[in-house]
C-alpha cells in the first residue's frame, strides 16, 4: 500500500496545471464571466487534443488508457481554475457520442441537474444517462433560459424530462467531487495568501487566531475530502463515491464561504474571484447527487451491513 501519488500521477497533475495556467489564467476566467459562461470552442478542442476527454478510453480507441485516479487528478485541476463547460458529461460521453473524445463536440447531460440543463446553447448534443448507465442522445428542440446563480454556468429549463434518468454514473459523481476538491484547495490557498498579506491592527490578519483557525479548518476539510475522493477513485465503490461527494461538497461550499469571510468586504465584490468559487460549488453540490441523496446512500450502506 502506498496511497501517495505515483511519479506518473504527479507528472500528469503538473502537466495539466501548466496547460490550464497557460490557457485559462485569470484574464481568460474573467473573459468567460463577461461572456456569461459562453464556451471557448478553440480551448475545448485543445483540451480534446490534450486527451482531456479521452483520458480513460483504451489506447486502441484513441484514448490514453488511464483510470479513474488519473481522471480525478485532472478534474481537480479543472476545479481549481473554474474552467467552465459540461466537462464531466463530455468526458463520460467520449467513446459513445461522436466528437466528444477529441473535443470537437460539446456534450451536455440533461440528467445532471433535475429539470435543468447546463450550457444548452453551446452544446451540440444533449444526453441522458439512463438506467443502463449509457449516455442516450435526446432531442431537445427548445428550452427556456433561467437566470443562473453561477455566472459561468448558463442554465435552461427543460419543458419536460426527455427520458427517465437512471442512477447517476459513479464516474460522473466522482469527477464532480474532484472538481469540488480542487475548488476547496484553491479557496484555502487564496484565503491563506490574503491572510498573509492583508494588514490590520498593524499585523497580517492571518496572525489572529480567529482567522488562522478558519484557514486551518478549511485545510482539514480539504484534506479529508482528498483522502475520500482519491480512495473512491482507486476502489470505484459507489457508496464510497457518494461519501466522497458528500465531503467534497462540504469542503468546497464551506471553504468558499470561509474564504469570503477571510477576504472581508473585498470578497463580497463582483471583481473578486471568491464568489465564482462559491457559486460554482453551490451548483456542483446539486449536480448528480444532492447532500440529502448522498446521506441516504450512506445510510442504506449502513443498513445493508447487518
Amino acid at each position, binding site marked *: 500500500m502506498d496511497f501517495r501519488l*505515483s511519479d506518473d500521477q504527479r507528472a500528469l497533475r503538473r502537466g495539466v496545471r501548466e496547460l490550464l495556467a497557460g490557457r485559462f489564467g485569470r484574464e481568460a476566467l474573467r473573459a468567460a464571466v463577461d461572456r456569461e459562461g459562453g464556451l471557448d470552442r478553440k480551448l475545448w478542442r485543445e483540451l480534446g487534443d490534450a486527451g482531456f476527454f479521452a483520458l480513460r478510453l483504451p489506447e486502441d480507441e484513441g484514448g490514453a488508457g488511464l483510470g479513474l485516479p488519473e481522471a480525478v487528478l485532472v478534474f481537480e485541476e479543472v476545479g481549481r481554475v473554474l474552467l467552465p463547460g459540461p466537462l464531466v458529461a463530455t468526458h463520460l460521453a467520449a467513446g459513445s457520442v461522436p466528437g466528444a473524445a477529441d473535443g470537437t463536440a460539446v456534450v451536455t447531460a440533461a440528467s445532471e441537474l433535475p429539470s435543468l440543463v447546463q450550457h444548452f446553447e453551446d452544446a451540440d448534443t444533449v444526453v441522458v444517462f439512463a438506467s443502463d448507465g449509457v449516455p442516450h442522445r435526446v432531442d431537445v428542440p427548445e428550452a427556456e433560459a433561467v437566470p443562473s446563480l453561477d455566472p459561468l454556468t448558463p442554465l435552461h429549463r427543460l419543458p419536460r424530462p426527455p427520458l427517465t434518468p437512471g442512477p447517476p454514473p459513479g464516474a460522473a459523481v466522482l469527477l464532480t467531487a474532484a472538481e469540488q476538491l480542487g475548488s476547496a484547495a484553491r479557496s484555502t490557498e487564496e484565503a491563506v495568501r490574503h491572510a498573509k498579506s492583508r494588514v490590520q491592527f498593524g499585523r497580517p490578519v492571518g496572525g489572529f487566531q480567529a482567522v488562522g483557525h478558519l484557514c486551518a479548518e478549511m485545510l482539514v476539510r480539504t484534506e479529508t475530502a*482528498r483522502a475520500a475522493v*482519491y480512495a473512491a477513485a482507486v476502489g470505484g465503490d459507489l457508496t464510497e463515491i457518494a461519501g466522497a461527494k458528500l465531503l467534497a461538497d462540504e469542503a468546497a461550499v464551506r471553504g468558499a464561504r470561509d474564504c469570503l469571510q477571510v477576504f472581508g468586504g473585498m470578497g463580497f465584490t463582483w471583481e473578486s474571484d471568491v464568489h465564482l468559487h462559491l457559486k460554482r460549488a453551490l451548483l456542483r453540490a446539486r449536480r448528480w447527487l444532492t447532500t440529502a441523496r448522498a446521506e*441516504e446512500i450512506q445510510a442504506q450502506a449502513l443498513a445493508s451491513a447487518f
Partner: protein
Amino acid sequence: MDLAYTAAEEEFRARLRDWLAGTLPTLPPPPPAGDWPARRAHDSAWQRRLYDAGYGNVHLDASPTLRLIFLEETEKAGAPYVGANFVGLLHAGPTIAAEGTPEQRERWLGPILRGEEIWCQGFSEPDAGSDLASLRTKAVRDGDAYVVTGQKIWTSHAEVADWCELLVRTDPGAPRHRGITWLAMRMDAPGVTVRPLRTLAGSTEFAEVFLDEVRVPAADRVGEENDGWRVTMVTLSFERGTAFAGEVVACRRTLTEVATRARANGCWDDPVLRRRLGRLHAEFTALWRLVQWNVSEAAATGGVPGTGGSVFKLRYSQARQELYDATAEVLGPGALDLSLPWTRERLSSLSYTIAAGTSQIQRNILAERVLGLPKGR
C-alpha cells in the same frame, strides 16, 4: 495511489487473524473498569501473549503498514485494547528506541514488550497544559543523580506504573524549549506521591503525581541534558499519527451497531437521524482513508508521521463526539443511564478534543507549520 497490500502484508494479516481466532476465546473476561491492579494484570498478560506469538514488537519495529494491519485486525477481532501498556508501547518505548543508548534500550524495551513493566507519562503540569514548554518541575544535578521536585497531572495509569517518562527543567535560565530534559523515573522512588484524579466520566485512570526531592540516576536520562524538548517531539508526533487507527475501526463498528439499534426501535424512520448516521458513515470511511494516507506518508518518510496527524486528530476527535451524541438520540431515555456503555463513552469522548493537544493547539499547528501563517495571538 495504491491501496492494495503486498502479498507479504496479506500473509501477515491472515496469520494474525488465525492466531486471534484461536487465542481470543481462551482469554479471561476483562476485569471491572475501576480495578486497576486487576486491569494491569489483564493488560500485561495480553501483551505477554502477543510477545510470545511474535507480535510484541509490532509498535516498535514493524513497518507503519504492518502496524496498521495489526491495529485493524486486533480491533476487528475484539482483542483487548493496549490499555495500561499504552505509554510504554506507544510513547516511551518509541522514544527510547529512537533516542536511548544501547544499554537503555536493553534495559527498558524488553520489559515493555513483554508487558512486565508499565509506564506512565509525566509531561503536563497544572500550569503547563497546552503550553507544555512552560513546565516547571525542576531537576538539579547532584553527583550521579538528578533531584526532582514538582508536580505532574493527567498521568494515566500512574497508580499501577513502574516507570514514568518525565519532562523536567534542568536549566531555568535557558530559553524555555532549551532547558528541558527527558528522564525515566521509577514510580516507587522515595518522594513520589500519586493521587488519583476522578474524571467527569467517573473513571480514575488519571492521577496527579507529586515529586518531592526524588532522586533519579543520571544514567536514566534519555538524550542529552537540556535536549528533552526535541526528544519529546518525536513521541508527540507519533501520538497524533497512527495511534488512533484502531479506534477508527471501533467507531465504524459502533456506528453499525447504532444503526441496527435504530432500525429495531423505529428511530431509523426519522430521516433527520437516518441522514445524520449516514453522514457519520461517510465521515468514518474518510477517516480510515486519512489513516491510510498518513501511514503511507510515514512509511515513505521513515516512520515518523508528519503534520497529517493534526488534520486527522482534529477531524477524528470531532467525529467521535458526534458519533456518541448520535447514540444518545437512538438510546432515548437510555442516554441518561450510566450503566450503558454508549452513555459512558459519550462522556469519555469529551476528552478527545482536549487530550494529546487541544483542537485549538492543533489548529495553531496547521495554521503556522503547514499553511505558513504568522504565529497566532
